[in-house]
Structures are given as structure tokens and as C-alpha cells.
């Protein structure tokens, strides 16, 4: 029977629920931003577009905060826990398992080292984007400068989150938290 440990469930929540959720709502936000142009929307369409943009922007910010908080304070301590002296089976100690193998140590020294820091930049950027969405609301349709700034900010958050996600997936493949 297929079973999951508590640690695997939390890792899945961190990476799949929050991570994939972020990507899902990023796609929505991007599409809504690109269609937020006066010639494409009626007054009613604009209201609906901005409401959906507020929902997707909120989801992006909330999911990115949840991902880093759960990742750092719940999953990461399991990842970096030092094995007791004399432990030969490093299966439950992913960091030590990676470092013990010269072919895999780069996934900690480069992959996890970058991911653990880079991940924290994403919610800060996503929150700034969310602020702009709520500050301007329907006026975004008139403010081309702010709209394009918002577009770039959201894309930067996505690129950084993408790097973090890919590194996380590879590290989990090589040394899962179990």
C-alpha cells in the first residue's frame, strides 16, 4: 500500500501545493495583466479583470510566504539535521547524505545553499506586486507605466520561484526528506 510519512506530506505541501499553486496563479495574473488594456475591456470587464487580478495577486503573495515559512521552519530542519555519531544509514539525513557523496555534494553546496536564500526573495517581490495591484486597482488600465512595472515584477518573482522549484525538485530526487 502506498503510504507517506509526515515529513513527506509536509515536503509535498511545501513544494507541490504551495509551489504549483504559485505557478497556477502566476499564469492567471500574467494573463489578466496582459489583457488589462482600455481597448480590450468594457467597464464591466475591467471590474471583473481587476477583481480576478486581486485574487491571483493575493494567492501568489500568500502562497509564496507559506512556501518559505513551511520550507524553512518545518521541512528544512529535517533536511539539515545532523546524524547521531556512528550513524551509517544516512537515509533520514538528506544534507549529510548529499555531502557524503562527492558526486552529489554540489546539490547541497550549490543547490540548497542558493535555494534556501533565493526563496526568501520571492515573497518580498510578490508582496510589492500585490500592493501595486490594490493601490491602483482599476486605475491600472490607465497607468501603463505601473502596469508594465507590475508585469516585470511578477515575472521576476516567477523566474526566482522557478529556479527555487527546480533546485528543490532535483534535491528531493537525490535526497528526499523522509
Amino acid at each position: 500500500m502506498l503510504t507517506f510519512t509526515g515529513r513527506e506530506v509536509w515536503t509535498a505541501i511545501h513544494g507541490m501545493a504551495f509551489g504549483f499553486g504559485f505557478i497556477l496563479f502566476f499564469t492567471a495574473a500574467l494573463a489578466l495583466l496582459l489583457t488589462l488594456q482600455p481597448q480590450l475591456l468594457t467597464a464591466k470587464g475591467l471590474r471583473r479583470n481587476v477583481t480576478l487580478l486581486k485574487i491571483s495577486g493575493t494567492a501568489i503573495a500568500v502562497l509564496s510566504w507559506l512556501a518559505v515559512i513551511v520550507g524553512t521552519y518545518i521541512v528544512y530542519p529535517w533536511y539539515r539535521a545532523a546524524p547521531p555519531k556512528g550513524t551509517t544509514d544516512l537515509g533520514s539525513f538528506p544534507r549529510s547524505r548529499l555531502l557524503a557523496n562527492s558526486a552529489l555534494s554540489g546539490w547541497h553546496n550549490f543547490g540548497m545553499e542558493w535555494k534556501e536564500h533565493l526563496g526568501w526573495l520571492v515573497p518580498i517581490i510578490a508582496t510589492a506586486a500585490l500592493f501595486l495591484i490594490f493601490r491602483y486597482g482599476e486605475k491600472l488600465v490607465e497607468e501603463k507605466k505601473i502596469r508594465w512595472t507590475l508585469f516585470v515584477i511578477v515575472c521576476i518573482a516567477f523566474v526566482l520561484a522557478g529556479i527555487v522549484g527546480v533546485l528543490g525538485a532535483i534535491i528531493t530526487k537525490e535526497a528526499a526528506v523522509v
Partner: protein
Amino acid sequence: MSEKIQDGTAAAAILAAGIGLAVTGIASASAEAIAAVGKALVWSKPVGDLSGKTIIGIAAWLVSWLILGLIWRGKDVKFRLVLIVSTVLLAVGVLLTFPPVFELITGG
């Protein structure tokens, strides 16, 4: 549509985010370069120095946002300059968290 919104509050949010990113990067590189700093940033034992580095970055972001927001509220600012400075701060944040770069700095 109603009257124009001054871009000061938007600029404050963007620049403050850039400051938060840069401070997180600087804290990360400092913790790697100076062992005592790394030790001092262990604010949660299970998490290690990542706890201190990120909390400092978030504090810098929120405090700078509050200050800039108050200064620039209801004003128009040099938005293009704010974007350029914020981009540089973003680059600082990303580069200083990039292991090959902070290893170069620390000689590691």
C-alpha cells in the same frame, strides 16, 4: 476615471522591496564570510543562520517601506530612477545569495 494617483507610494513599495532583497543578500554573504556573524544570526537552532539572515532582510524591507512610504506619500518621484536603483538592489540580492559569488568573496 477619477484623479491620478501619485507614484510615490508605488515607488516606495518597489524600492523597499529592493532594499529587502539586497540586505538579505548582504546578510547571507556576511554570514558566510565572517564566522562570528554567521553564529550571531542563528536565531533558531533547528534552522541555523538562515533564520537571522532572512528576518534581518524582512525587517529592512518593512522599515524602509514604512519610511519611504511616509516620505513619498502623495508625491510624484523620479520613478525611472527608482526602478533602476531597485533593479541594482535586486541584482545585489540575487548575486550575494549565489554560492559561487559568496564563495568568491569568502575565498571558499
